[in-house]
């Protein structure tokens, strides 16, 4: 349904005076999403996860330049098509209640989302009330302000904003941090249900453990690029392909709890060769010279010269 290949995003910033600074936030990113599946996008902060969502919705800041190809349902996703599709075919479930207008009650806000997909006011209102009921939100929630919602209610309201649209692609941006474990698993269940109903879901998160509970496939981001695309089960069967994914997996508290040494490269001056070379245990001269391309390996994808099945 969605396919991204060699997507790059560069920000142009003005440093001191008129000196321009190029910030390569996404480099040669590849990703594809099918209808009915949950694709988790995981990576450390600063790896370009949220910007990917903004790129898909065409809401990147004006100083951003995009290259590469995006296709959605077989047709190229141009900026013009982005504008037509966002909110209708492609929707965002935002991170927190901070993405709702603090001075407007939540019912009318979700209703507005439904109206923007072409429903009449009355139909939109019915749809919102039905969705709220389905998620076990009390009737008075419609007239509450965002600050009056508890963490769990807020999550359900935010998921409702996607449910009231007919969107085929749902992007959930960091839907779980800072929440009670019960709320986390509830939210994940809701996302899984969306996929089971035939929508494609991109779950953007840095919480691999949470993502693995529902994800069919996991795309691992590093410094704005996809280093590996693996099936969810590959994590448990030890079939991980890329050294970064392996290190990430080992760094989880329930595993070896070993930190990944080093930092992501400076986005202002991306190094020559592989973006992971400074932290890689397998690094050799080839990695320092040339940037590896994403290649298929064992039913998954990896961006590494030395990965073997």
């Amino acid at each position, binding site marked *: 349904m969605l396919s991204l290949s060699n997507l790059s995003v560069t920000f142009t910033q003005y440093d001191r005076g008129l000196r321009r600074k190029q910030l390569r936030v996404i480099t040669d990113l590849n990703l594809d999403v099918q209808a009915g599946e949950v694709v988790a996008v995981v990576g450390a902060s600063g790896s370009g996860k949220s910007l990917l969502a903004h790129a898909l919705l065409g809401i990147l800041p004006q100083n951003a330049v995009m290259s590469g190809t995006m296709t959605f349902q077989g047709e190229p996703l141009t900026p013009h098509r982005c504008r037509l599709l*966002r909110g209708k075919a492609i*929707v965002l479930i935002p991170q927190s209640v901070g993405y709702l*207008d*603090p001075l407007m009650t939540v019912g009318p806000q979700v209703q*507005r989302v439904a109206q923007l997909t072409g429903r009449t006011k009355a139909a939109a209102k019915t749809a919102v009330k039905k969705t709220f009921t389905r998620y076990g939100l009390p009737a008075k929630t419609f007239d509450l302000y965002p600050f009056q919602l508890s963490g769990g209610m807020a999550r359900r309201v935010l998921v409702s904003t996607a449910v009231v649209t007919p969107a085929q692609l749902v992007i959930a941006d960091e839907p779980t941090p800072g929440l009670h474990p019960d709320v986390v698993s509830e939210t994940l269940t809701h996302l899984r249900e969306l996929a089971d109903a035939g929508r494609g879901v991109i779950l953007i998160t840095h919480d691999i453990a949470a993502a693995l509970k529902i994800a069919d496939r996991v795309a691992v981001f590093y410094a704005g690029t996809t280093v590996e695309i693996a099936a969810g089960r590959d994590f448990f069967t030890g079939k991980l392909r890329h050294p970064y994914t392996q290190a990430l997996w080992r760094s989880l508290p329930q595993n070896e709890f070993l930190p990944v040494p080093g930092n992501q490269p400076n986005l202002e001056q991306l190094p020559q060769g592989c973006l992971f070379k400074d932290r890689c245990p397998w690094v050799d001269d080839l990695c320092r010279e040339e940037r590896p391309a994403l290649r298929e390996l064992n039913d998954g994808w990896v961006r590494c010269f030395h990965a073997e099945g």
Partner: protein
Amino acid sequence: MPIKRRPERQPEKQLVNRRVNTLLIFVGQKLLRLGLLLIAVAIFTFVLLSLSPIDPVQAYIGADMMQISADQQALIAERWGLDQPFWNRFLDWLGQILQGNLGVSLVFNRPVSEVIAARFQASLQMLAIAWLLSGLLGLALGTLAGAVAGSWIDRVIRLYAYTLAAAPTFWVALLLLIVFAVSWRIAPVCCAAPPGVLSQNVTVWQHLHHLLLPAMTLSIIGIANITLHTRQKLIEVLHSDYVLFALAQGENLWNIVRYHGLRNILLPAITLQFASLSELFGGSVLVEQVFAYPGLGEATVQGALRSDVPLLVGIVFFSALFVYIGNTLADLAYPIIDPRIRLGGQMNR
């Protein structure tokens, strides 16, 4: 999955009682602060006037000073208590003020409270028109400029606002007078009514006709400030997370301004609007002088030029009160507009 429990709804009556209590506490606090403010104003005014070169006896007698002997002057000073020590004079004066006696204006030869009441009535209409005009136009221009920030429309509006913000009030007043009253002859040159017409014979239209140019001048000055602040605030709102989400929902710019922008800039706009009362009041002194409009501002200038100490003190008190009331109204408007203040307070109790 457990839902975080909300406090039970309090019975309605208790809620009403609590609200009345909150209101009473609010009013009590405000009155206490007003009292402290006025005492501070009283002390400052008295000290400053004691140190000023104005000799009250001389100001009272005026041009007849030459005909009055030094003995007689001393007699007047003694009768007024001017020979008393500073603190005695201050307490005596404060006692009179507390009883509502602001003294008699030397310029108008009437009790100060009467002069202020009459003059303020004339100024009030002008201030009200200017206040509304500057508020509405400032909000409209600021919203437009903020929504299309960086475009040529924004640049034109900003240039206009900066120019006006930098222009002295009296200069703008003179300019408008030259254009509308002298060149185009569509506005009167001065005063609150046509010359030679008794005040009871002045029609509403004549009245409005004379009011319009001073009110316009005053509002033009206020517009700049409100425009620039509104623009800045709207730009902030348009960079917020909730506007980003609205964009992701496919909302267009004008609907974002309509549904989210106006709602979120209203609170600062109202604060600013009420805070601008003090600036308008200050501006009216100059504007009324240029247009020879018989309002409170013009009385201030006359009082100052002719050393009318009682009138000046009265006006100082009145303006402090006026500005304080303006700010209090803004405070009262907050809970009406902002649900976080209105409902947040109840939830935490």
